[in-house]
């Protein structure tokens, strides 16, 4: 089973492969366990380094978009800037204000960070084609081959908000509390749309296993083509879930100082940062896996597992770039607009999407899969049109402005 990634598949010499492989009867050998731990450590470090690089990328890209240059002094192109930042965070004084709830204040950054790191266990980062029962099937490689991978990620990612909400509450400061409260409210509003946007994917692939979803996409077509609406809503909801602009209400530095991490300093603050970037990476990986075929790219992935890693990384990097790109384009939503979008727009749309997709599958009308995108986009347009009609009176032009001097008094 290639889904079980031992070090053997990393192309090492046979003797090394033997040390890290399972016993002949399939039970876990000592070397196999060590190999697994090494792979886990590798993945965790990849995420941590990616998070650090994201900080650099965010600063550079935002600078480019604002006609600036950005950090370019530490190392080539400023690539070592995250290291310098880390050094700064390490040696800064770790201030714990006197008015905080010490226990929760201390564990809140950890609660925020750990879920972000462990969600990566089920993300398939590459794979290969294998012949199973006479058919060529795309088999994904991941650390843990979980049959309920999608649910696992959604469940664990939902835990991260406790770190933010508790951090805000334990800080015992108005700004932090408001940030924490907003985080929890936003989380609930968007987790629903997020989950419902995944349902059509699961329905079409017929599995909750991320590897099997990729296999389905490799066999048929990428789900972004058959489920564009679900893709779009999932992408938008994941922006809200990771507290990124235009939905960064918990942080919103223009109104709440720094939101939930106002009172945090030193590495505690850095951990919140790390959690945000790790969450972004998970969201990007999830969008890639669910809607863009993961490590597949129109047959290019057959060149080997290294190509799969490259394709997967490039897709993830594109979505990470999109996170930054959107951040510097779309201004922050107002709180009521945020709630309106989540409950009034996205929730009905995702429900319609689920019903239409389920109907197409139940009737076994696969040709409808090609009609679905059109239908769904039409549904979205009709919904917008209804809203436009409803609000029409709000946008009626006012009576011609009175002449100067006749301005109304109130």
């Amino acid at each position, binding site marked *: 089973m290639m889904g079980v990634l031992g070090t053997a598949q990393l192309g090492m010499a046979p003797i090394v492969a033997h040390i890290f492989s399972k016993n002949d009867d399939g039970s876990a050998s000592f070397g196999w366990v060590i190999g697994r731990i090494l792979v886990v450590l590798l993945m965790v470090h990849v995420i941590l380094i990616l998070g650090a690089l994201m900080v650099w990328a965010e600063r550079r890209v935002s600078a480019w978009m604002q006609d600036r240059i950005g950090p370019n002094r530490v190392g080539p192109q400023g690539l070592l800037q995250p290291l310098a930042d880390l050094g700064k965070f390490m040696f800064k004084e770790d201030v714990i204000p006197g008015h905080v709830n010490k226990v929760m204040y201390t564990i809140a950054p950890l609660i925020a960070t750990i879920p972000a790191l462990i969600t990566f266990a089920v993300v398939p980062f590459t794979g290969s084609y294998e012949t199973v029962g006479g058919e060529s099937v795309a088999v994904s490689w991941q650390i843990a081959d979980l049959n309920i991978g999608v649910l696992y990620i959604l469940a664990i990612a939902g835990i991260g908000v406790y770190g933010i909400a508790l951090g805000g509450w334990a800080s015992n400061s108005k700004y932090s509390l408001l940030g924490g*409260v907003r985080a929890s409210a936003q989380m609930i509003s968007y987790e629903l749309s997020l989950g419902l946007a995944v349902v059509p994917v699961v329905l079409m692939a017929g599995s909750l296993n991320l590897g099997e979803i990729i296999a389905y996409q490799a066999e048929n077509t990428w789900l972004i083509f058959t489920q564009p609406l679900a893709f779009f809503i999932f992408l938008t909801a994941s922006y809200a879930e990771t507290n990124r602009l235009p939905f960064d209400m918990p942080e919103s530095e223009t109104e709440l100082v720094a939101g939930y991490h106002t009172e945090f300093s030193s590495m505690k603050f850095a951990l919140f940062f790390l959690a945000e970037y790790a969450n972004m990476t998970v969201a990007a990986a999830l969008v890639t896996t669910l809607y863009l075929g993961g490590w597949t790219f129109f047959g290019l992935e057959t060149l080997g597992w290294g190509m799969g890693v490259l394709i997967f990384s490039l897709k993830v990097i594109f979505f990470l770039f999109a996170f930054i790109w959107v951040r510097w384009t779309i201004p922050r939503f107002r709180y009521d607009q945020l709630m309106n979008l989540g409950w009034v727009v996205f929730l009905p749309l995702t429900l319609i999407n689920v019903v239409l997709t389920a109907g197409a599958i139940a009737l076994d009308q696969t040709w409808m899969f090609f009609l679905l995108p059109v239908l769904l986009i039409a549904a979205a347009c009709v919904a917008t049109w209804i809203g436009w009609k409803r609000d029409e009176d709000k946008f009626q032009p006012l009576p011609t402005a009175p002449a100067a001097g006749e301005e109304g008094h109130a």
Partner: protein
Amino acid sequence: MTTVLFIVFGGMALVSALLAVTRQNPIASAIWLVGMFFGLAGVYVVLEAYFVAAVQVLVYAGAIMVLFLFVIMLLDLRTKQLDEEGPPKMPIWGVLAAVLFIVASGWALMDAVGTPGFFPDAEERAALELDGSAKAIGADLFGRWLLAFEVTSILLLGGILGAVILTKRRLT
């Protein structure tokens, strides 16, 4: 191994539940309740019910307790206020409810233990296709237990309507 894990997760659930009801601070209570859900999810995993475990964390720990936390934060309950209110005025109703619950659940349990296949061994599980997958649970929920499922839905709908009527002072 399974037994050890069961004891660890079961113990975690029990201790967290105990701490959740004894904490003075409502936020701490809520956090221990989340710990309890995780312990319960762990128990489900030990029982090879991965789907139920994931849904447990997703729905209860991920959504419902976040909502609880949100409400507690908004209400800003202080431990002092709770102390001033003192113990519940009419503990008799609480005791009555507890007794009713124990009797009802005990009755249901005693009734079920007798039926064959309540504690399925490996062979019976294979025959029933109880592999803890989403498919098995879906088939069971929307086949064998459809009526119970729908009745539960109506019960929840009633709860929602009740909440709306309680919060809206005047229905227009």
